[in-house]
């Protein structure tokens, strides 16, 4: 993006209804065009967001962070340069570069890093989102070694700054810009504009400022990851055609020149470990595929994959069944197959799905594909629920099959009792990452379809009466993880619920009744006021409330405890644990 474009985009009018983000750009140099580029790129990504930046004092990054009032900031952008670590590491301050000065520079760098770490820790605990860019400019020619030799002082400085990056990465809500990604997009030798630095205090070339602004804007936007990958097997997950070559002849190894298929396997396994759903769509004989998955040297376990669709029907049929099992939309899934024809067939059936031809004879192409997949599936952190996701879908599938088999033989009450379900209620002032994700992706059992920005979500705690209730469930089929979230506020004997979602995997287990029962009991409430808004997809919750309310559900219905108790069925699950904690 050129500077003039960034200026034009940044100055476009924003709708009054646009959500406002109060941002603080903390840097020790004049923010000038970097601020313009971040704003321009953010507006280009999120047209309907109004980001209003304030900035700190020139030359005092640590002080700007220490003085920051976190209650008036939704987003903190921290851009650190070497001159913030010690002014002598920039060209605007003349403090001496004699070898005898180096010990003092190192000591002052360690002090500055400790201050920055402390200030970041304090800010990250109170500001919804923080993005950080570590020094991106070259160190000046100050060391006694030749530029090609990294001497002890340079190595110690790099080590000190790397320590800050590692400790800041552990902080909640902090996202660190990848130095590797920045170097790919902005070569280090083209970043520094010495004339601009010396004359205006802005040290970046326009190109570097634009790239950094673009990447920081991406990091701020924090795009939700795609949910599932559907992969082919032959000449994709492994090299060879298992039905023709045999289970022992398929390969993914250096000596067979098929190593990149092994790399793909370990990559897919890493996605599975991070909670990305992995399914298989393969035209094959199911028993042959099952034997292939028994090979001990396969890097992707059969447990990482569900479901495995192996038959001779169209691939799009397999994809349809997998989407139904996962209950996710085509637009959040990537399909990978080595056959351009199969890819075209699936794409024709699911235009919203990203369908990719696996570049089986092209090592660089495969590496590029993995980088792309990392970009679409990457997430800021992996939660406990991520690790449970596939097991949870398996459990829900097993439950559905048992329910169908036993229909007519057992009553619903008996079936639910036999499931040996238990619920864990966790009540907090502020919801965790999984609750945030569930609220923002659930459509069917969703009180009003309201979506939260990261900033709004972490600000729910600012109301002293507010609570976020997250509910996890397990039964004899296995754990489903966190399956329901209620956001509300307790005022006397009335509880106002502003958001309530439940995963469709948890339907038909009366968990919704348990949620209401818990709220009535926990808050000694006599009524619950629900911010119900009908959407085009939440018929299931409207119908549920219709059963409970004396009048048909309409906006903001009030549910009295007496009425609830009269109409609630037997509640079958054990309440295993109730944790009530204050977060952060």
């Amino acid at each position, binding site marked *: 993006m*050129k*500077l*003039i474009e960034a*200026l*034009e985009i940044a*100055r476009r009018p924003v709708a009054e209804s646009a959500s406002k983000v109060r941002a603080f750009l903390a840097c020790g140099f004049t923010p*000038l*065009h970097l601020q*313009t580029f971040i704003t321009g790129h953010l507006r280009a990504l999120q047209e309907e967001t109004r980001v209003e930046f304030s900035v700190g004092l020139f030359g005092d990054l640590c002080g700007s962070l220490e003085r920051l009032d976190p209650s008036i900031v939704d987003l903190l952008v921290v851009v650190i340069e070497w001159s913030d670590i010690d002014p002598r590491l920039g060209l605007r301050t003349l403090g001496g570069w004699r070898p005898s000065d180096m010990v003092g520079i190192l000591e002052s760098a360690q002090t500055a890093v400790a201050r920055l770490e402390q200030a970041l820790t304090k800010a990250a605990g109170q500001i919804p989102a923080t993005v950080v860019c570590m020094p991106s400019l070259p160190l000046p020619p100050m060391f006694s070694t030749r530029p090609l030799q990294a001497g002890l002082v340079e190595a110690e400085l790099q080590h000190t700054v790397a320590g800050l990056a590692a400790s800041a990465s552990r902080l909640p809500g902090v996202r660190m810009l990848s130095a590797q990604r920045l170097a790919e997009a902005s070569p280090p030798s083209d970043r520094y504009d010495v004339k*601009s630095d010396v*004359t*205006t205090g*802005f040290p970046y070339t*326009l190109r570097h400022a634009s790239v950094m602004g673009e990447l920081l804007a991406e990091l701020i936007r924090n795009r939700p990851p795609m949910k599932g990958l559907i992969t082919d097997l032959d000449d994709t997950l492994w090299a060879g055609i298992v039905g023709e070559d045999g289970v022992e002849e398929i390969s993914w190894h250096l000596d067979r020149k098929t190593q990149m298929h092994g790399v793909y396997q370990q990559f897919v396994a890493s996605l599975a470990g991070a909670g990305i759903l992995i399914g298989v769509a393969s035209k094959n004989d199911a028993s042959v595929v099952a034997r292939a998955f028994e090979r001990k040297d396969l890097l992707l376990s059969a447990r990482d994959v569900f479901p495995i669709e192996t038959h001779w029907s169209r691939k799009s049929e397999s994809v349809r069944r997998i989407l139904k099992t996962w209950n996710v939309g085509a637009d959040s899934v990537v399909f990978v197959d080595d056959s351009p024809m199969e890819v075209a067939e699936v794409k024709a059936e699911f235009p919203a799905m990203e369908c990719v031809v696996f570049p089986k004879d092209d090592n660089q192409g495969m590496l590029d594909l993995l980088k792309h997949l990392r970009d679409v599936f990457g997430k800021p952190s992996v939660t406990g629920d991520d690790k449970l996701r596939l097991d949870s879908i398996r459990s829900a599938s097993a439950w559905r099959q048992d329910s169908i088999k036993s229909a007519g033989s057992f009553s619903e009450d008996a079936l639910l009792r036999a499931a040996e379900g238990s619920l864990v209620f966790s009540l907090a002032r502020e919801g965790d990452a999984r609750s945030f994700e569930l609220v923002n992706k659930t459509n069917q059992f969703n009180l009003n379809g309201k979506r939260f920005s990261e900033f709004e979500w972490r600000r729910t705690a600012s109301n002293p009466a507010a609570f976020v209730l997250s509910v996890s469930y397990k039964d004899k089929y296995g754990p489903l993880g966190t399956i329901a979230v209620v956001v509300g506020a307790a005022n006397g004997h009335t509880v106002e619920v502003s958001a309530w979602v439940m995963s469709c995997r948890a339907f038909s287990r009366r968990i919704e009744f348990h949620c209401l029962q818990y709220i009535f009991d926990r808050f000694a409430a006599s009524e619950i006021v629900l911010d119900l808004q009908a959407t085009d997809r939440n018929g299931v919750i409207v119908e549920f409330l219709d059963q409970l309310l004396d009048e048909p559900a309409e906006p903001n219905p009030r549910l009295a405890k007496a009425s609830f108790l009269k109409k609630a069925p037997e509640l079958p699950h054990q309440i295993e644990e109730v944790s009530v904690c204050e977060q952060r």
Partner: protein
Amino acid sequence: MNNDDDRLMNCFLTIFPGTTRDEIKGSKFEDLPGWDSLRGVTLLAVLDDEFGVQMDMDELLELGTFDAIERQFARAR
């Protein structure tokens, strides 16, 4: 106005929002509404980015007006 002149005018209109073409053509930079050193530095960066012309603030102020810059660019073409 040729295409480059239009681009130049567009740079000024973007950096000094709310001003008209006539105001820009008829005024010294320092008299344009919103002029300050920050706008000056932004103008210099935009001229570099758009036209590859590098000037410092003293040169810009010496030229003084949009018309003078326009003439200088025409001579350089």
